[in-house]
């Protein structure tokens, strides 16, 4: 692809603006858009009631599913990705939830809790929690999610197994962040895991 042309067209366009810049007819402009899209130099947004916007870049766009795509599919308030995350291979809600926990970012953690309403493979979630040694954290977050939002029910066998892994020493999920709510504190005390959510965070999620 001609880099000079891409550099010249870089940015956001509508069909009309593209027609004006390239001096093409509408049909040719649409063909050109399809060609750029095929080569991954163009991304489409909008459509429907909104005007269709085409973003053109001299760099090829990367496509794929990742943690942020899954979180934002279920989140109440979508998060801005801290980095681009692309997965090659099998990756589901369970993996995204665990990866979100490991990032230790408050907003990502909060929005990832909505995934708990879409978990199908509890066994996989348990295995991943075990692998990363975060079983009590998963248990505590699940209990918090149960009082804040709608979630699926965790199998009793998994819950019992998580309970057995409660630590002796208090774990902080996000350093220096503590709750100010009695109900959340009781969950924190039960699991010996410091939950970072305040009463306002709980209300925001509902």
């Amino acid at each position, binding site marked *: 692809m001609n*880099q000079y042309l891409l*550099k010249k067209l*870089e940015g956001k366009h509508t069909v009309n603006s593209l027609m004006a810049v390239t001096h093409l007819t509408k049909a040719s402009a649409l063909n050109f858009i399809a060609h750029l899209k095929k080569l*991954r130099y163009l991304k489409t947004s909008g459509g429907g009631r909104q005007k269709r916007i085409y973003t053109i*870049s*001299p*760099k*090829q*766009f*990367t496509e794929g599913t*990742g943690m942020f795509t899954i979180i934002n599919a279920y989140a109440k308030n979508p998060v801005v990705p801290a*980095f*681009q*995350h*692309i*997965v*090659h*291979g*099998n*990756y589901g809600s369970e*993996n995204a939830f665990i990866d979100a926990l490991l990032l230790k970012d408050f907003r990502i953690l909060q929005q990832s809790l909505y995934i708990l309403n879409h978990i199908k493979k509890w066994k996989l979630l348990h295995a991943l929690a075990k692998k990363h040694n975060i079983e009590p954290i998963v248990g505590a977050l699940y209990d918090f999610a149960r009082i804040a939002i709608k979630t699926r029910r965790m199998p009793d066998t998994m819950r019992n197994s998580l309970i057995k892994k409660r630590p002796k020493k208090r774990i902080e999920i996000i350093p220096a962040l503590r709750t100010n709510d009695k109900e959340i504190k009781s969950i924190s005390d039960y699991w010996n895991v410091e939950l970072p959510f305040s009463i306002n965070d709980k209300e925001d999620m509902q």
Partner: protein
Amino acid sequence: MISKEDQDTLLQLVSRYIKKDVVCYAFGGNAMMYYGYKNATKDVDVIFESEEERTIFIDAIMHLGYKQMSMTGVYIEGLCKEKHKPLMFTRGDERFDLFVSKIFQTQLSKTMKERAVARHDYVNACTLLVYVLSKEDIVFLKSITQREKDFDDIRAIIEKESHFSWDIVIDEALFQSQHGDGWAILDLKETMNRLKKIIFIKKEYFDRLYGKK
């Protein structure tokens, strides 16, 4: 040459043969492909945080038929004597350059890791995590490896990128020079002087590099 699609297929295959989860950082032509700066590359440059991870990775690529090769003819003679030189593996015309913790004298700093812009997970029984370093770090690291096509790659990045922070590159060079890399500033200075003939670089950046500011 290896294309982006081939690289993904290859690394997906590598993830099948690794015996433990491995984390590595891409910074060469392969990182440029993740960005979309180029469509194909000859060498896959990655750096690992530990020797153990590199060994696991090497076992996997040897399983796929890669053989170790000499550095001579690829890197300049002085770099071949460095303590932290890469182990190189090849099969056909593609090549892996595998570093551990340091790229010659330059360390994989904490800020470089924090600046990583993308993470590609190749998931199988074990996971291969490839972090892609920022464009500024790629330019900086390419300026110290001094291979035949590195300057062309730097030029391609700068020409395609509308937002490029020379401050980050210079901060990193100064940090590396304070932490044992005696060549970081000199190599970067040489690259910037060559680039100055093609693109506009403000004098203040040279001043910062010379320690005038």
